[in-house]
């Protein structure tokens, strides 16, 4: 596609509910990142994939967060038993290779009520 696509754009979840956020990276991009952005803050790294391999998940805040990229293209970020502190914008980015600019999607705004 023309850019990184994320869905849904907005998600409201009741506390305790599970959510799944989808990222469609730019076709052919090897690297994929997930970031979490709180209001007024910069994006905070969550996890990194190179093709289908999850090489870094050091930023995932708890074991309720899980990400996958089974075929090396589309990725899903899943949050189980959502809590209010999970409310944020979740951004996905892809890059064609190492040490290049990152292309971001528009993000998914998650609100946990």
């Amino acid at each position, binding site marked *: 596609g023309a850019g990184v696509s994320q869905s849904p754009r907005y998600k409201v979840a009741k506390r305790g509910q599970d959510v799944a956020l989808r990222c469609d990276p730019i076709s052919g991009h090897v690297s994929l*990142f997930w970031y979490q952005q709180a209001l007024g803050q910069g994006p905070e790294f969550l996890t990194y994939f190179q093709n289908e391999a999850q090489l870094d998940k050091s930023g995932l805040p708890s074991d309720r967060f899980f990400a996958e990229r089974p075929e090396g293209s589309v990725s899903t970020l899943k949050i189980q038993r959502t809590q209010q502190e999970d409310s944020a914008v979740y951004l996905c980015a892809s890059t064609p290779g190492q040490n290049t600019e990152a292309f971001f999607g528009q993000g998914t705004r998650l609100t946990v009520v």
Partner: protein
Amino acid sequence: SQKIEQNSEALNIQEGKTATLTCNYTNYSPAYLQWYRQDPGRGPVFLLLIRENEKEKRKERLKVTFDTTLKQSLFHITASQPADSATYLCAPKPTGGYNKLIFGAGTRLAVHP
């Protein structure tokens, strides 16, 4: 721990003036540094990348400097326009490893007619 500091206060300037944004980092030596622009409700968009062996980089009305001694990057927008109003994020990239970007909190720029 690694820390990135950007002007926390919003920067208000008059149209036509030069905007200067500051990014300071501590406790690591980046191989390069990227600057991104973020508009409300959108993902960050790449602007410029400057490497550790480059002192200055220009692109149209944008200029970035990189002082590895001071551990600082300055981002300049000359002849600023109201359309330049946005949040600007800096992301120094540590040496080694993959393209994992660590972002500052960003500086909000408002250019007034």
